[in-house]
């Protein structure tokens, strides 16, 4: 074994105290320094932290951004979700392929560039977008792609292009990114003025139990989409037995079409950290972890700087704000490209240095979560709301929004509209009202809740967006005249097929079967029976999958079947002779004819 390699790996592992729970950080650092995590490197890591090599391998092979092979010096990850394709991602891809002389999925012979596709990177408001190593480029054109390719070929990076920085903190020296906030409408909550410490001061003036009582009185429900009452979650976590407790912030914003957390992390990180600190006080935790999606790596230096400033100001660390015994600190855990890690138990697995597999429930995280200790996992926006509730009081919050869904909500609007971006609006806003605001009165369909959400038809545009009618973690994708909704459903099924962790059969196999049947229909080879088959299979996946991914992954097909059935019906026709139009004997024997060297003696269809 290469001694130098071993020395480097030993040093990296020591940086994380040879703690196997920090496997994500270890393999990320190894990859950053060596271009990939080779088998030899895995062996060295395993030896250093005292686990089996296969455990290291299971982590490296699970995450999209990790690889056992060395990737190019520059890795271009082009987002190919439906929205980005609507705005020309395919043409950008062709340009990159032509410029570098390789296909997507390949690396140039000189090891300079790798081209890869990636699902939604949280930039649907400025598509097409790509990650170039950790840097984000947005609003790509074929012209821009050529310029990027030339710069990389000449200099090995894109520094000389001097891409203009975005607005607000995107221009902060520690962020330095061309990302734009596209913050279109501010309410009086998350993006309103906030003095760091204001919420904490009010919180510590009360007992932790009173604090939780306040959160319950505010009727705040989880902003990630599932809508579990936050106060109740905290109460369970506080009440659970455990010498240590943890606060986890879910910043793995991976639901296609969601990017509101990106704007919070850029413009209101203080508010989020303050909310986490309040949670620490309320449930009796001393540590918090922000699980940040790998795609938002460009924000880590900035966020760490904010954390340091809060420590310096006495808002984190020991005896916070002079309150004896109130100790709390926060670290940032980077993800590495896995949608499933937005599911709270998978997120916990990932924080523990494992594959992002969901865990069995019960026990719930509130009883046994991170490292087996009681843990509260809440969304970025939820923590922000908590901080505002502490600052302004529970009644102030509770009177906003609709009956079952209190407060304001951030919506990430993308697609065919004049003003894509982030809107802070009260719960209970109807789809129609939202469409008027964003300039999309001619929409033919709206996807509420991301890939796992609902495809809403115009006759339902009067419905309210809230937990009781159209639930969403924030994603709203708008589709104008001429967009093909079956292709939309197909692209979501492709996404779920790729992102399923593979643990349970209904999700791993079912989504593939569902996607294949949908393809038959799109190709005009479907029969009316296929629609019934898809409904039955979709419901089986929904009811028998192990976690939230599988329980919602059939929605693209199920909700389009429900709300746009005529689109399907116009594509299918009954088979008069009982033969399946999707089967072609010619195609099925083609390979055999080639290998054996003779034609089929049966008639060709």
């Amino acid at each position, binding site marked *: 074994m290469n001694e130098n390699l071993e020395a480097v790996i030993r040093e990296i592992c020591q940086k994380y105290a040879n703690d196997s729970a920090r496997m994500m950080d270890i393999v990320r650092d190894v990859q950053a320094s060596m271009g990939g995590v080779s088998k030899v490197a895995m062996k060295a890591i395993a030896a250093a932290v005292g686990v089996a090599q296969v455990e290291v391998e299971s982590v490296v092979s699970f995450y999209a951004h990790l690889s056992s092979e060395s990737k190019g010096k520059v890795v271009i990850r082009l987002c190919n979700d439906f929205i980005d394709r609507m705005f020309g991602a395919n043409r950008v891809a062709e340009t990159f392929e032509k410029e570098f002389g390789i296909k997507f999925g390949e690396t140039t012979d000189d090891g300079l560039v790798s081209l890869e596709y990636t699902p939604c990177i949280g930039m649907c408001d400025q598509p097409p977008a790509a990650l170039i190593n950790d840097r984000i480029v947005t609003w790509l054109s074929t012209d821009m792609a050529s310029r990027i390719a030339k710069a990389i070929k000449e200099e090995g990076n894109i520094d000389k292009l001097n891409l203009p920085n975005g607005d607000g903190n995107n221009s902060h020296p520690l962020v330095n990114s061309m990302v734009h906030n596209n913050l279109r409408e501010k309410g009086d909550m998350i993006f309103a003025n906030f003095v760091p410490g204001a919420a904490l001061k009010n919180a510590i003036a009360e007992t932790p139990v009173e604090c939780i009582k306040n959160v319950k009185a505010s009727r705040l429900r989880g902003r990630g989409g599932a809508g579990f009452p936050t106060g109740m979650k905290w109460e369970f976590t506080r009440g659970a037995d455990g010498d240590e407790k943890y606060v986890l912030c879910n910043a793995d914003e991976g639901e296609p079409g969601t990017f509101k957390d990106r704007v919070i992390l850029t413009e209101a990180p203080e508010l989020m950290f303050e909310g986490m600190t309040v949670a620490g006080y309320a449930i009796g935790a001393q540590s918090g972890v922000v699980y940040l999606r790998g795609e938002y790596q460009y924000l880590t230096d900035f966020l760490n700087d904010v954390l340091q400033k809060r420590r310096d100001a006495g808002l984190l660390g020991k005896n916070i704000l002079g309150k004896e015994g109130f100790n709390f600190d926060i670290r940032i855990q980077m993800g590495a490209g896995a949608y499933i890690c937005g599911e709270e138990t998978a997120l916990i697995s990932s924080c523990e240095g494992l594959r992002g597999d969901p865990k069995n429930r019960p026990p719930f995280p509130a009883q046994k979560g991170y490292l087996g200790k009681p843990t509260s996992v809440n969304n970025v926006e939820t923590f922000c709301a908590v901080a505002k509730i502490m600052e302004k009081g529970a009644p102030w919050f509770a009177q906003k929004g609709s009956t079952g869904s209190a407060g304001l909500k951030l919506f990430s609007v993308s697609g065919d509209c004049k003003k894509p971006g982030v809107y802070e609006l009260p719960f209970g806003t109807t789809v129609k009202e939202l469409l008027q605001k964003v300039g999309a009165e001619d929409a033919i369909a709206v996807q509420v809740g991301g890939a796992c959400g609902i495809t809403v038809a115009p006759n339902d545009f009067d419905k309210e967006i809230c937990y009781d009618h159209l639930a969403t973690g924030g994603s709203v994708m708008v589709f104008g005249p001429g967009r093909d909704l079956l292709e939309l459903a197909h692209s979501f099924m492709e996404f779920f097929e790729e992102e399923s962790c593979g643990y349970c059969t209904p999700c791993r196999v079912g989504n593939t079967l569902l996607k294949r049947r949908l393809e038959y229909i799109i190709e005009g080879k479907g029969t009316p029976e296929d629609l019934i088959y898809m409904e039955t299979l979709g419901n089986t996946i929904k009811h028998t999958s192990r976690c939230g991914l599988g329980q919602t992954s059939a929605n693209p097909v199920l909700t389009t079947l429900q709300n746009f059935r005529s689109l399907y019906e116009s594509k299918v026709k009954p088979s008069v002779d*009982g033969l*399946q139009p999707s089967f072609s004997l010619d195609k099925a024997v083609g390979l055999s004819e080639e*290998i054996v060297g003779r034609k089929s003696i*049966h008639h060709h269809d």
Partner: protein
Amino acid sequence: MTKPKVATTSLAGCFGCHMSILDIDDRILKLVELIDFNKSPVTDIKKFSERCLVGLVEGGCCNEENVHVLQDFRKNCDVLISVGDCAIMGGIPAMRNGISLKECFQEAYQDGVTVYNPSGKIPSDKELPLLLDKVYPCSAIVKMDYHMPGCPPSADTIWETLVALLTNKPLDLPYELIKYD
């Protein structure tokens, strides 16, 4: 009154399901009172001579001949039943679906340890039906009306199913006949 006709075939199967049909033992005498077998290995009738009420299909489709037999069954039978797991989802033969067809041929005719084939050629005789790119379940080729699970389905399952179908009565199989764990 003429008796309803039943046809059976074994495609990419092992004939185990047909053995299970024979396992109905002396009930076969009762069965012959109820039906006539048409095209079937049981009668050795090679071509459909009459339209059949029921077609029992064992095995999935691994080659072009399987496809033609199955399509022929669809044309000549009112009700088609997949009998056994191979017919329903490909079964054991479908284990080759994870291996490329080229590798399958190489292993069978060129590289296998017991292969004696000095010419190294892959047989191309017209008598040998061409293999399909993969093994297909019957329902991927034609519309199947019912699926009878099991490897093989027990004689009782086959008997109860046939009797229910022929007497137009609802089928109520006890749990013991359809559990496999």
